[in-house]
């Protein structure tokens, strides 16, 4: 039973039916469905079963993503993925996956409330990230479709290169989100970046 109680994002967004899509060079993408998926990469049947449910193949190449429909599958480890979904009820997606994987050694865990996505896009994206990320994010090395779990400043973060605008999604744990947001604003200040001023507060 879906709860009628509105959700609150780690950066203070409050879910509502008429929430406009986030716009700007530095925004939170709140209330996505985040599922942690574990299964053995040699289990071809399980891979196929997941493909059936989410509409994309799980990426088997380290540090890459696959995207299709409204599910993005992100490689986290040789037997671990993050599924990000935009318009799903997390409960339903979990149930579908668990059903599909019932006869396999696999795990599907809803962690939607435990993390959030911060989207950074525009010409200063790489300059801002370079202030706290030790990885080489140059498009020749880290093209759209690449991802990496790493440190951003002093927090763990999952970086996803979305497109060549460039656009990056930064997945952070809930309790670290205010720190990461403050850090991004501080680093982005020299480029005129800031979160949209909230009118929900």
């Amino acid at each position, binding site marked *: 039973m879906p709860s009628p109680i509105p959700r609150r994002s780690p950066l203070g967004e409050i879910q509502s039916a008429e929430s406009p899509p986030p716009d700007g060079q530095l925004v939170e993408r709140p209330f996505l469905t985040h599922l942690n998926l574990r299964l053995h990469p040699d289990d071809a049947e399980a891979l196929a079963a997941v493909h059936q449910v989410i509409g994309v193949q799980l990426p088997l190449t*380290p*540090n890459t993503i696959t995207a299709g429909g409204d599910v993005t599958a992100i490689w*986290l*480890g*040789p037997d*671990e993925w993050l599924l990000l979904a935009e318009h799903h009820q997390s409960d339903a997606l979990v149930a579908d996956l668990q059903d599909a994987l019932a006869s396999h050694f696999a795990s599907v865990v809803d962690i939607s409330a435990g993390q959030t996505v911060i989207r950074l896009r525009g010409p200063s994206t790489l300059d801002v990230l370079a202030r706290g990320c030790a990885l080489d994010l140059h498009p020749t090395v880290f093209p759209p479709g690449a991802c*990496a779990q790493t*440190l951003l400043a002093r927090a*763990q973060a999952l970086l996803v290169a979305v497109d060549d605008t460039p656009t990056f999604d930064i997945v952070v744990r809930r309790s670290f989100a205010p720190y990461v947001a403050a850090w991004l604003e501080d680093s982005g200040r020299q480029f005129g970046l800031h979160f949209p001023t909230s009118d929900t507060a």
Partner: protein
Amino acid sequence: MLLIPCPWCGPREDDEFTFGGEADFPRPAEPEALTDEQWADYLFMRDNRRGRHREQWCHTAGCRRWFIVERDTVTNEILGAGTYGGSP
């Protein structure tokens, strides 16, 4: 700063990793069958080799996989890395 080659994620800076001590010290199958000395040997004694050294690392801030690194303890040169199963 040591650049550590995670077998899955590639070379990353050392602050993404946790050191897990010397490798190749498997847990005895039947601890109760061991003498105190043998158990203490497993618990406390390590070779701490000068030169080539096999050790465990975990890519804590990355893929969370434990893996083995071979490192020269004199030069800090990393000679290779291997997984505990599977290959990228």
